[in-house]
């Protein structure tokens, strides 16, 4: 494998830079995916049938904690990549672990929220609005959960093999994914929760 020393490690081989570009293209496909889910949500947003509306359902407290956790985790994954560029394996692992822990916290709160909703009688089957809400939040949550497993897998590889062109590449791509989930969450936070609470 030809390694180009003038580039950062994660871009250093042709395969690596292709992978990063390919992942950008994949994120390009994630945009229409979430855009479609948002569209469905906006179409459904006033179709409550006999179920509750957003303002009756949402509570700002847990949502703010979720937002705080996810946004901070985006910062720590940035720090992890920064540490990676400097070759600090230990710092990188610590920041990645922090990222994943915050991700886990996010998922926990979201699951708790879902249980609360269901407990209040707001289920997937209740109304068009709730179906679209659960599927939009659920898709994002499933991405975070998948990201958690993926990130954990990359940490194991980092721990075993250190910062190599291959592991650096994987960690960098993972960070792109994680930032993307953050961006989606900002949209969910603004247009689902804040708008719903108004």
């Amino acid at each position, binding site marked *: 494998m030809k390694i180009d020393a003038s580039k950062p490690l994660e871009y250093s081989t042709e395969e690596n830079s*292709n992978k990063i570009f390919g992942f950008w*293209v994949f994120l390009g496909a994630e945009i229409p995916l979430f855009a479609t889910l948002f569209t469905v949500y906006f179409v459904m947003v006033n179709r409550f049938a006999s179920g509750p509306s957003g303002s009756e359902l949402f509570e700002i407290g847990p949502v703010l904690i979720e937002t705080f956790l996810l946004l901070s985790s985006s910062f720590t994954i940035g720090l992890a990549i920064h540490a990676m560029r400097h070759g600090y394996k230990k710092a990188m692992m610590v920041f990645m672990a922090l990222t994943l822990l915050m991700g886990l916290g996010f998922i926990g709160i979201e699951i708790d929220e879902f249980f609360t909703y269901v407990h209040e009688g707001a289920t997937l089957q209740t109304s068009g609005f709730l179906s679209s809400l659960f599927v939009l939040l659920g898709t994002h949550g499933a991405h975070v959960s998948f990201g958690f497993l993926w990130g954990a897998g990359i940490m194991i590889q980092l721990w075993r093999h250190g910062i190599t062109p291959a592991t650096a590449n994987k960690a960098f791509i993972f960070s792109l994914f994680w930032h993307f989930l953050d961006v989606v969450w900002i949209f969910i936070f603004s247009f689902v929760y804040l708008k719903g609470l108004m």
Partner: protein
Amino acid sequence: MDLDKFKVHGEPLIYGAMVSIALATIGILVGLTYFKKWGYLWREWLTTVDHKKIGVMYILAALLMLFRGGVDAMMMRLQTAAPEMKFLDAQHYNEVFTTHGLIMILFMAMPFIIGLMNVIIPLQIGARDVAFPRLNAVSFWLFFMGAMLLNISFVIGGSPDAGWSAYFPLASLEFSPTVGNNYYSLALQISGIGTLITGVNFIVTILKMRAPGMKLMKMPMFTWSVLITNVIIVFAFPVLTVALALMMFDRLFGSQFFTMANGGMDMLWANLFWVWGHPEVYIVILPAFGIYSEIIATFSKKNLYGYTSMVFSMLIISLLSFLVWAHHFYTMGQGAMVNSFFSITTMAIAVPTGVKIFNWLFTLRKGRITFTTPMLYTLAFIPIFTIGGVTGVMLAMASADYQYHNTMFLVAHFHYVLIPGAVFAVIAGFHYWFPKVFGFRLNERLGKHSFWWIVISFNVTFFPLFFLGLMGMTRRTYTYSEESGFGPLNMLSFVGAVGLAIGFLLLVYNIYWSTRYMPRDTTSDPWDGRTLEWATHSPMPIYNFAIVPTVQTRDALWSAKQDNIPLYDDTKITKIHMPSNTGKPFILGVIFFILGFALVFSLWIPAILSGIGVIVMLAFMSFDRDHGYYISAEEVIATEKKLKRGEIV
């Protein structure tokens, strides 16, 4: 567990299908064991990551599906050949037209095109493989397993029966209580993920792995068309992913997306479906335009006329393809303003398409034309497709569409677009590139026979449908009365369908005959080609090009031949890095198949287990540290020597 839902109750035809599927499966298993081919199958095909082999498997699967979809078509034409036919009942007819549409578009046309892409694109841009060879194998196996999942629906549980567009509320659990539409949502989902991955893979391949000197505007037209197509795939398929997921939630978990009560909205499905569905049409047609452009330039011995306008018209078509979806349901009540908008965007597509037609005509002008089989298909395509296009503009007029909507006129129109636009193209491409992959040509005489059968019978089959539509025959009616007067034209159409079947059988016979008797093509360039795929040996070695060619002009090989520009520096053979084979994509596909099947029948425990299986498999793939192997320079030189002597390696 209720075993009854696995059974399909029906007619002798379905039992016949069950028996033939069982016999064919046993036959294949016994054959593989008897000829001791299991190891060969596993090593050379199931685990391959070679783009050429994956492409060949795509095309084989597509041919198989062409047969399946063709049998569906024959059954429909037979059922409607005369008034009050008793061949199929209404339910069976519903299932047959649904699977015919699904299979022909998603499991025949698209994989055939993706197969040609796989074989040709890396060669055309002078690359050793696609950007992500293993992911390419994942794509194929997901497509294949999706296709198999849809096909077993016929004998286990029942096929989808709400039309290929599966409009709600008809496709809901309430009105389609069989598992048919569960199959629909899961089979399409699985193969759709495969297609999306293909899209990402080829965008990266084309943008990042072209031979040195091949600027974007020097790419062959087929490569351009494939690049644009894959951009459409990446933007359109996620919409299908969402639509199918919501359908699955509605049917399996009782959500309220497309229901008629509790705030659901049935039209949401129609919109989501066609936001994907219309670009899908261009996903199968744009690469066809690329194939035709290559063939016309090659067999007219001229540069393609209006290269730049060709590229721009494809870009415009790809953009417009996302802005026309509502023309599929003008009559479903979205109002005059919306209809006018979509009417205008739809008609606008005729402009760039017309530009392309004229470019092809001007390429032919004063060309030294040779009438080979691929060229015949291309020449037939131009007028037939124009009929399809013109009737398309007729349908695009919203007010007039109230007359044609859901009649046989529409059926005739889209067959006039898709058969010359996609099917003729893949057959032409198949004949054109066959010698590249297998090292011998298909027989021209048989090829021309099947061409004439197909092209004449096609018109006999579908031209009467225009008139039937105007007479008021609606699509998807399984029978009609004698007084309606639809009988004679339907009979004519059936006769045409028989002719089409003969044409396709001749095509298959040609493959068999040519494999046995055609002499080996020793030139590697049997058509006097213009683009890089003809610059390497045929069949090509696993590494495609011993030395990556350097490109200076469009139609690089043609200029190299005309002006004696060297494509390679022969002395610079170095070791070549290749990806190693892996069985993981195949296993992942199998797990996806089990997951899909379990979800179709709401078998939750197997579904959860196979879902975990998918994650575990992905982890295995991530932890894989096999970074491929090298072919040494000496080995490459030895292989090249053998190939030059005409030996097969």
